């Protein structure tokens, strides 16, 4: 739904984009002020997906809130589960068995792969390249099947628990996961040949919507967007949580950062390429995690807390597919949280869109939003 409004006596035209626009990745509205094809400013109008999830957290128990965290970011629900579980565990000082940590890492990384499938496939499609989208979604289906077998759901997993995870994995599942990785690794190279290094695609994205390191930090960009700007910071490596501290040194981890290979550092192509690199690293992490988990005792995957009545406040941070997702939770000694707050990657990225859109072409606004991997429910929560 787009409509044109001509501002009286001015050359400026106001174009309404959204909220039901296919390339806004959810329900977001932009009020685009343009001069011809050039945007003078794009004002984001969010809140269409506001479900008051933080308010719901005050109304149900710590454990009972877990399914709602899936809805914070339904493209990468596993990490939202993870951040809530870690925040409550930190708040109440609960122990988590090592096997649960490995299962969390495995499920997080699988979900990261599927989330990036959506991000990359949809971005290519937003720019007019339709073919990569079904390729990416085909791979996502395999991940969904795997996760469905692990926890019974394909999208909103509700897999992590306060104190562990919901179910253990089986050997058959582990074999399937390894088989998927064997299949997926060559697919990444195929995807590179198909789109990442495609000359037309590179020319379309290189030097577009450049976000430098200083700007990225000031505006609080996180995750792949921050790393594409050249800041080598990844929570998994720099502030290891779960069992990433045991896994990453074994696989020779090097935080991938944008280097301006096709243009300036921090352009839209860098952000695209960085997510492809994250696929490769996720595969390596998964192989190592699926190997190391064999050493942990079977069946010890959950220490369910009894009488959870924590007091105080705690902040937990987890590297989600859209970067550092943090959860701040306040307890007042009752079974419900007194206050919860999710700070997500898309929320921060969206705050930058107004600044970055100045001087872009209308068609490039879509590229900017897609390259920041904005998912609307994450903004509004």
């Amino acid at each position, binding site marked *: 739904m787009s409509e044109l409004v001509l501002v009286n006596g001015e050359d400026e035209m106001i174009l309404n984009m959204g909220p039901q626009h296919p390339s806004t990745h959810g329900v977001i509205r932009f009020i685009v002020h343009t001069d011809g094809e050039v945007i003078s400013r794009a004002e984001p109008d969010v809140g269409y997906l506001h479900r*008051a999830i933080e308010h719901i957290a005050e109304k149900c128990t710590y454990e009972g809130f877990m399914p709602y965290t899936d809805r914070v970011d339904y493209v990468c629900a596993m990490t939202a589960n993870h951040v809530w579980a870690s925040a409550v565990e*930190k708040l109440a000082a609960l122990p988590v068995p090592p096997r649960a940590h490995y299962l969390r890492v495995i499920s997080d990384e699988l979900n990261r792969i599927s989330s990036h499938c959506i991000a990359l496939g949809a971005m290519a499609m937003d720019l007019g390249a339709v073919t990569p989208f079904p390729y990416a979604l085909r791979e996502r289906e395999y991940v969904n099947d795997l996760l469905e077998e692990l926890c019974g759901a394909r999208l909103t997993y509700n897999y992590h628990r306060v104190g562990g995870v919901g179910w253990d994995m089986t050997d058959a599942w582990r074999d399937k996961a390894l088989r998927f990785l064997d299949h997926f690794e060559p697919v990444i190279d195929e995807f590179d040949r198909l789109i990442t290094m495609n000359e037309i695609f590179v020319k379309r994205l290189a030097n577009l919507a450049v976000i430098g390191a200083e700007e990225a*930090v000031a505006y*609080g960009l996180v995750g792949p967007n921050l790393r594409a700007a050249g800041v080598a910071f990844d929570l998994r490596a720099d502030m290891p949580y779960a069992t990433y501290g045991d896994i990453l040194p074994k696989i020779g981890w090097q935080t991938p950062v944008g280097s301006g290979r096709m243009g300036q550092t921090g352009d839209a192509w860098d952000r695209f390429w960085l997510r492809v690199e994250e696929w490769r690293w996720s595969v390596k992490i998964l192989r190592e995690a699926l190997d190391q988990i064999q050493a942990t005792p079977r069946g010890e995957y959950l220490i369910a807390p009894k009488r959870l009545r924590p007091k*105080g*406040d705690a902040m937990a941070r987890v590297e989600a597919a859209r970067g550092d997702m943090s959860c701040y939770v306040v307890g007042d000694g009752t079974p419900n949280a007194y206050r919860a707050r999710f700070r997500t990657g898309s*929320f921060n990225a969206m*705050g930058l869109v107004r600044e970055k859109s100045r001087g872009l072409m209308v068609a490039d606004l879509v590229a900017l939003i897609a390259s920041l991997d904005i998912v609307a429910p994450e903004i509004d929560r």
Partner: protein
Amino acid sequence: MKAREIFERVAASAGHEAVFALDEAGEGAAVTVPDKPADKAKAGAGQGHADAGRDASFHARPADLMTVMGVLRDDPELRFDFLQNLTAVDWAKREVIQVVYHLFSYAHRHEICVRVDLPRAAPHVSSVVSLWPTANWHEREQFDLLGVVFEGHPDLRRLLMPDDWVGHPMRKDFQEPKTYRGMPTSRPSPLDLLVTYDRAHAPKPQVAPAAAAPAPAPPKAETPS
């Protein structure tokens, strides 16, 4: 850098009365995971370690917030370049709204939490947008949901709720209005409207009058005999 060093450095630059109530909890007090399963179950009883659940934090006086934040961001030893999270908590019983700033430094990889207590009746505090542009949307959200007024904010409008919404929904005493622009904000649960039939005392099924009345005599067939 440890919380105490950060606190003392800020106090030295911004004035000793500007910051107070340092809470070092969490640092040095690692969560101990017991080995035996029986102990694990006990540790999982929700009590756990007394200190582990908190982040190191200190309070700042609202009037000195900008000075304190300026030191935290610009001091080369501190360099908190990332406003990781900004939120507010409504402590209705204490008549306080607490704004909580979580800061992180990419340069030094340390973090700190700064708290500011504001009177609940008039929660006004300086905006930190000039220090961290990312605060723009964070402050708009807290203004929207809790009614904290950030003075000096370039564009303090509601973010998530409609512009003409009345009240701040995350306040503990917020009452949801019955209608919004003539639309009801709640609807009866369909389960309440569900008609249930009590089978035991249900009225006997009425015999259909057509069946009760003697059927009209069929036209007499001419039968032999």
